[in-house]
């Protein structure tokens, strides 16, 4: 019986080893400085430095319920060390947290910031969080929401 159990354990170990995914760690995805990107006529933004391009129409529609709200706007974008993208813009009430997935950015969290809209938002990269400032207001954000909030 003991012998059978040992064989079973060994087999389980082999199966586990065969199925586990190769993981490289630690990894740091953080951008040192936020990017301020103009939205083009089609709603696209492009960050050449990081070879990133995506469409913002749905996000603007979500924020303003207006399909043309993206026109003439610029967004502020930063990536944290875990790889989540934080996006906001002037007069947004929320900060949108996205994670990249299979050629898309999928909303991970929508962090409500201000009922009246953020006047002059800016992101700063900090050691273990993203700092959102708006005038004198400072908030610490993670992909889960406002720290301590």
């Amino acid at each position: 019986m003991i012998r059978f159990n040992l064989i079973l354990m060994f087999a389980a170990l082999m199966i586990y080893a065969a199925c586990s995914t190769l993981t490289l760690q630690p990894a740091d995805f953080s951008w040192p400085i936020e990017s301020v990107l103009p939205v083009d006529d089609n709603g696209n933004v492009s960050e050449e430095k990081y070879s990133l391009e995506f469409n913002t129409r749905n996000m603007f529609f979500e924020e303003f319920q207006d399909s043309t709200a993206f026109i003439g706007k610029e967004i502020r974008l930063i990536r944290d060390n875990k790889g989540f993208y934080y996006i906001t813009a002037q007069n947004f009430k929320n900060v949108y947290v996205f994670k990249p997935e299979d050629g898309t950015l999928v909303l991970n969290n929508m962090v409500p910031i201000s009922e009246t809209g953020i006047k002059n938002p800016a992101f700063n990269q900090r050691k273990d969080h993203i700092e959102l400032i708006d005038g004198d207001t400072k908030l610490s954000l993670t992909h889960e929401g406002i720290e301590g909030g």
Partner: protein
Amino acid sequence: MKKKIIKINLKMFILVIIIAAAAAFAQSDYEIVQNFRKDYAGIKDKIENADSLAQLNSIVDNIAQLRDKYSEHADLLDNGLYPDQFETSIAKLNSAYILRQGDFARIDVLKTEVSTLKKNVDTLNTKNNELLANLERLESLSNKNSKQIGQLNNLVAELRGSLLKRDRLVMSMVDSLMPPIMREKTMLSPEDKEQINSEIEKDNVLTNVKTTIKDNIQYLNLTTLQPEDLKDIQSQQNEFEDTWSRIGGKLVDVYADNNSRSRELREIDSLFTRWKYAVRKEAWNSISEVFAKKGVPLKSFSNEESFVNSVSEYIEDEKKNIETQNENKAEQNYALFVDSTWYGEIKPVWTNYLIEYGMLSEENKDSIESNIAGWKSELYPSTLWIWIIIAGLLAASAVILLTRKRRTAEGTEPPV
């Protein structure tokens, strides 16, 4: 009680200071990087556009201030300015400053050089005037003895050397009017214009350019030159014109509001054209002199068309005169023109030059030579046809003789 109120107020005050300080720290990293970039670009612009060493020196403080102001954000800037870094950016500004300082040092050196050049040009101007006067005097003597001819040749050589020397000095003077950085500017600043204007006025640059070209034209008028000399002059002329074209265009801008100086610039342009024309004219004059010296009376010519017409007319006249004039005279004229002048001097010495500088086309040269061939065939008609007739007659006689002989032989045979 009063003490307590003061204590509370003091605490409130400290709290306000702390809040204000905290608020002051709420600064966007992005903004810091952008502000640095803006300040950096501002200083770089100032360095590039500094008009004097004094102005440039005042910018050193700006670089130091930039460094002090942003050194606390050095790490952030290292990341934000990627691939540049904070320290490398400051180092770039310092390098740009040193480089620009070098430009001003070069301008100072150029100023000194120009002042030396001016003295040399003045000396050469005086010398060239004397040489030209002497040359004119000797040229005007109708019967020159061998000593005078020797003197004349020496004078021409000395004048050529002296003119060349002065041309180079004036070219350097023109070239040094604008430092390279000023030439690259699409628009000159009022300070640039003022600086150039003062250099031009101080060194009489425009007058010197005009004198140089005029003297060269006069030299061409007084001398008879060979293709090699003309080639040298043309290459020097091109060099001078290139130098002038680099600066002249900018000077139009400098003197846009000065009518008399603008007129002088136009005069210089037209002098360049006259100089070019003078070189071509000199070539035709020299060729004309070759014919004259040989005693070939060609009609005067000063360009390709008149040259070809003149030569063709001469040949046609000679062809017409073959019948009327003495045979020896016709042959002498032919030998003088064709053997001695055309194939003896013009073709080996001048035609390549004329063709190379676009003054005579291959077709026109061929047409002259085909005219010469026609002239020859008229003067010395071919005798081949006489020989053919004689050969024909001899052959016919031989046939007749043979036929007669055969008939005679047939008549004397005895009947069978």
